[in-house]
């Protein structure tokens, strides 16, 4: 048994980050640190030049965590590092980033690389195992999360400390996000990253489209009623769009001022158009990471609707965003025998 094998995934991430930063292989490491609130993770950006002192670097890297912390998809931060500043004639040299990625984040990264938003050669990918992310919404339904004073995550349990000092022990698996429960590829393939951190990952899920199928089976008016109810909650804060790594348009159609596709306010039909187009634009891109639904402050059930496009792209065209540079966008190609049962005949 090597030394490495004895490290926990968290220690291994820290070791790799220190090495990469110290050896000058990356300009910045992007990972997660604990948020102030229990069971949350917040993005952590550690630049190589932190005044140079060894202790400083180790202290910064010591914040990096691995676990089920509820956190955004880190791939959502990449495009801003590489998009050109249109005001400048000559673009400055872009940084090389070390990035801690779980499998869903990696799929987003590959989509961004394929779509030329992020250069692969500027990324050092550190794949990490994933046991699923804690679902804060579900926890909130169960207990007064806003008053929980501390929380510890164990492989099979969540231990939360209540204001009175009482500790509640919950079955971890019960409080994992749907996106993770339904994840069919929780492990990072070794060949798709530069470093792979060993550790326990979830098992591959079966029946991933069950929720979509169940929704499809509802009567049409009921489907509309639910869509209406869900979109009525939306406050148009754009958190779903901003949290999504593959919603990267510089000028979103919702904000284009020359064409004015939709109104600027929270008018219901405009909100519905926004979501329909947002979902449609995720065809062939969505990694099913769940970041959009997680980001929503008002609990719109984005997953039920966004997963539909994933399922259709998968079932109609046999395409699912994965871990390679060779995949082609399903909407940039066609087959002569693509299904056309949906088309009308006189």
């Amino acid at each position, binding site marked *: 048994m090597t030394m490495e094998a004895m490290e926990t995934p968290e220690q291994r991430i820290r070791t790799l980050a220190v090495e990469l930063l110290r050896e000058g292989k990356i300009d910045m490491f992007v990972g997660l640190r604990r*948020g*102030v*609130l*229990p069971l*949350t*993770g*917040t*993005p*952590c*950006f550690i630049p190589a030049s932190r005044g140079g002192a060894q202790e400083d670097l180790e202290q910064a890297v010591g914040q990096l965590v691995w676990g089920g912390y*509820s*956190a*955004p998809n880190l791939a*959502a*931060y990449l495009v*801003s590092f590489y998009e050109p500043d249109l*005001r400048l004639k000559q673009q400055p040299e872009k940084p090389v980033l070390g990035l801690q990625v779980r499998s869903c984040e990696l799929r987003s990264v590959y989509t961004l690389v394929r779509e030329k938003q992020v250069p692969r050669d500027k990324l050092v990918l550190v794949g990490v195992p994933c046991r699923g992310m804690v679902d804060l*919404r579900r926890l*909130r*339904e169960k207990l*007064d999360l*806003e*008053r*929980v*004073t501390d929380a510890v995550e164990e492989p099979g349990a969540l231990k939360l400390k209540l*204001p009175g000092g009482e500790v509640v022990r919950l079955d971890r698996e019960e409080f994992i996000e749907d996106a993770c429960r339904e994840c069919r590829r929780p492990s990072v393939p070794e060949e798709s990253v530069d470093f792979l951190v060993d550790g326990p990952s979830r098992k591959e899920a079966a029946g991933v489209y069950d929720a979509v199928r169940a929704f499809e089976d509802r009567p049409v008016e009921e489907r509309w009623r639910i869509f209406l109810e869900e979109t009525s909650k939306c*406050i*148009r*804060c*754009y*958190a779903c*769009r*901003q*949290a999504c790594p593959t919603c990267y348009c510089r000028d979103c159609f919702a*904000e284009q*001022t020359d064409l004015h596709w939709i*109104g*600027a*306010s*929270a*008018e219901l039909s405009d909100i519905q158009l926004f979501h329909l187009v947002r979902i449609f634009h995720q065809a062939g891109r969505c990694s099913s990471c769940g*970041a959009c639904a*997680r*980001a929503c*402050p*008002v*609990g719109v059930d984005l997953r039920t609707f966004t997963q539909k496009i994933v399922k259709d792209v998968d079932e109609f065209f046999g395409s699912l965003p994965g871990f390679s540079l060779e995949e082609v966008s399903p909407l940039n190609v066609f087959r002569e025998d693509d299904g056309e049962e949906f088309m009308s005949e006189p």
Partner: protein
Amino acid sequence: MGKQKQQAKILDKAKLPDLIEALSARAVCLGPVRSADGPRWERLKPSSVLDLESVNTRLSPKAVFLPQREVLCTFRGDRLEDSPPESEAERTVLFGVRACDARALQCLDLVFGPGQSRFSDPYYLERRERALIITLACREPGRACFCTSVGGSPAGTEGADVAAVDLGAELLLTAVTDKGRDFLGEQEALLTAADQSHLESARNQAERARSLVGAVDLEKLTETLARDFDDPVWEELARPCLGCGVCAYLCPTCHCFDISDEVDSRGAGVRIRSWDCCQYPLFTRHASGHNPRVNRKQRLRQRIMHKYAYTVENSGVIFCVGCGRCILNCPAHLDIRVTLRALQTRGGRS
């Protein structure tokens, strides 16, 4: 005056439905109602299940006075029609407003009243005038609360017409304004007089709650913000920000808005005021394409400066009441307390 101030009353919680029924006859009565996503501001019915225990509602009650989408005027073709009818000109009672949110309304009053410019906002002010605010003191603040660091307190009564304290089986109601006194007078039949022990347990509870609120030392903030507009710390602070509008839309004092015209499928035109947010690039972009706040660093800085520096300079008030909504709901789990601390400790180096 001294005697009137003592006008504290007791409402048996079992009589809450009666109170709601009595109020609903003459006013739109709103309160925090239990839902799957936590308490929500809703129109109350006698059968409503009020949530008086949760820390606070996800969305703040500012939407009652500054709706997310509001018609300013209507038109057809190029003709302006009459202003929208004041059909909703009913009294509004907000029951169970947290102290932080009531203080936030006072911030909004500064903006929409005539103070900041010589113009008043009739839409906002009319709703404010029609409304009665009944606050509910916090017994058990949440992890994200920091009202005491920005001048508030869990049992504060600023912005309240009537202040309520939850004493378990009963509510202690104290009038704070004349409007509040009138209200308690009208509801006399449902109320009994409070005695010394009620007042004492309310006091003890307030003290206890106050001691439980986490503190952020903001003593040097105004000074550092005034100095550190170009500090590199802003770049660092903005990096994890996703650029969405959650913090602003959920904030009880954020009030920036847009005005736009919409025409429906039948040619009816409305001029709409809708919430807008300084974190969106479009917010400041000129028609020419030039944008004074073109990147996230500038936009995050604007939000912080607006709340903790500009409003202080213009009206002497910090536009943050420490409700913690931005902390609880940020999709990147950024914590404004950490940001403010970082600005004080790291700012000013350059």
